[in-house]
């Protein structure tokens, strides 16, 4: 099956001379959820804006559903819904009219049932007759999402949808995302909440300085780069790691009350068994053991750091 979104050697240089994208190539499969991670100014928003038609590409080709976004823009844009990063809504109009307006822009016939379901899903139904300016920030963000879904897009772009929103909205949003996934809608999101990308995305792309650093299946990425930490709480603090225990990856906490062992989950030998045996030999009493996986955040910070060095 051809990719629903295909980006080839996309470059974008703004009039001021700033190059936001320098050769991005990315294929997005229909029905997948892909998360784009990257520091501020990496080019995430420019990439989304260029696919959606808000900015014009300087070079390269972008196709959505097989339609070139520059030459066949009408058909390409027809498939897309966009939730922008910044809240931008007509303040004097009601929630209902705001959402209906967007549906109209996409030349869809009036469908009150669809809009009602959308507003109910996003807990906006009670507020349908309220003016947008009377809503809280979180509610406005819900309206943005409702607008983006008003015409039933096949591809949904969420540009940092959870930046500064409360837990409840995030839960509602992911519920909507889950339903859209069942309907086969492709979702592209950018986020700073890396756990979130880890939790909901099928694939993760990392962007830095206008380049895609990597795109990989979330599980593969976690596995490939995933490291775990074993934390060993001691009954008696130690002043330093005993001679016979010292090895790579083992460190003492500042207060000496615990030892932290970092290991690779995919190495042929993790070294845990040996460590535990040596602990016993050294005569240390264990109070507790816990393990934690290093988050995508660590991976991401590592990648971007390597790039900047």
């Amino acid at each position, binding site marked *: 099956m051809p990719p629903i979104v295909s980006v080839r050697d996309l470059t974008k240089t703004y009039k001021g001379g700033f190059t936001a994208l320098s050769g991005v190539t990315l294929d997005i499969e229909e029905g997948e959820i892909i998360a784009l991670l990257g520091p501020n100014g990496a080019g995430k928003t420019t990439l989304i804006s260029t696919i959606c038609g808000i900015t*014009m590409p300087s070079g390269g080709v972008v196709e959505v559903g097989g339609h070139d976004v520059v030459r066949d823009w*009408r*058909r390409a844009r027809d498939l897309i819904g966009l939730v922008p990063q910044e809240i931008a809504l007509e303040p004097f109009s009601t929630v209902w009219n705001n959402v209906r307006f*967007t549906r*109209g*822009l996409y030349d869809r016939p009036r469908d009150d049932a669809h809009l009602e379901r959308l507003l109910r899903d996003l807990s906006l139904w009670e507020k349908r007759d309220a003016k947008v300016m009377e809503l809280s920030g979180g509610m406005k963000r819900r309206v943005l999402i409702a*607008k983006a879904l008003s015409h039933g897009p096949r591809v949904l772009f969420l540009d940092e949808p959870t930046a500064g929103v409360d837990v409840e909205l995030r839960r509602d949003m992911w519920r909507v995302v889950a339903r859209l996934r069942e309907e086969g809608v492709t979702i592209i999101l950018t986020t700073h909440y890396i756990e979130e990308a880890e939790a909901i995305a099928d694939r993760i792309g990392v962007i830095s300085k206008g380049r895609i650093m990597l795109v990989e299946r979330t599980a593969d990425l976690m596995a490939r780069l995933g490291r775990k930490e074993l934390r060993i709480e001691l009954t008696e603090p130690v002043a330093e790691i005993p001679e016979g225990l010292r090895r790579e990856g083992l460190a003492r906490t500042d207060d000496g009350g615990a030892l932290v062992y970092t290991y690779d989950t995919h190495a042929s030998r993790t070294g845990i068994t040996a460590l535990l045996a040596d602990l016993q030999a050294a005569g240390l009493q264990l109070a507790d053991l816990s393990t934690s996986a290093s988050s995508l955040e660590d991976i991401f910070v590592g990648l971007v750091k390597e790039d900047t060095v």
Partner: protein
Amino acid sequence: MNFGAISAIYRAEMARFFRTLLQSFVSPVISTSLYFVVFGAAIGSRMDQVEGVDYAAFIIPGLIMLSVMTQATSNASFAIYFPKFIGTIYEYLSAPISFLEVTLGFVGAAATKALFIGLVILATSFLFVDFTILHPLAMLAFLFLTCISFALLGFIIGIWAKNFEQLQLIPLLVITPLVFLGGSFYSISMLPPAWQVVTRFNPVVYLISGFRWSFFGQADVPIGVSLAAIALFTAICLGIIWLIFRTGWRIRQ
């Protein structure tokens, strides 16, 4: 052609108009009434007829034009500037709509509002002055063309403007003086000969003259010239808009 989008934009703009009905209708009516009181009753009573028409009646076409031109311009410029200002412009850029469709929606709505206001002022005039319109169809056609062409001009200003000051600049600095100097309240023939020549370069003269002809059957310039002038003005505005859309100037980076 995405007619759904044109109609959505048009209806949203008209909804804004009716939300602010008081400002939209009442203020032009009040200011026109003031003009009638000051120019018509106070000054007009001390004046003879102008070219065979009572002065109070003579100023009606100019008064309507004054309001219609400023309203069409400011409505259209604000309508397209506002989405740029609050950021909702992203919707117009990412939706499957062409610039032509965006223009039709916004300019159509701004022209409709101006037309409404023009007709309301005309109705108000009947309360103050007794007069008949010689060529009602021509009058409507002139009114209609003026609404459209000045809404186009306003649309260009709205795209060009980077802040609210610039948005006010052209209407305040250019349109109002041109209208006042364009024979709204006097006949061009009343001016000294040198100024009559200067006035020929004011495009508004042709509009008001043609419009006045449709009321009273007499004009400062031939009616054909008036029509040609308004057609030229509309064509220039359309050309500029076409250029803006080709290049995405101040809209799409």
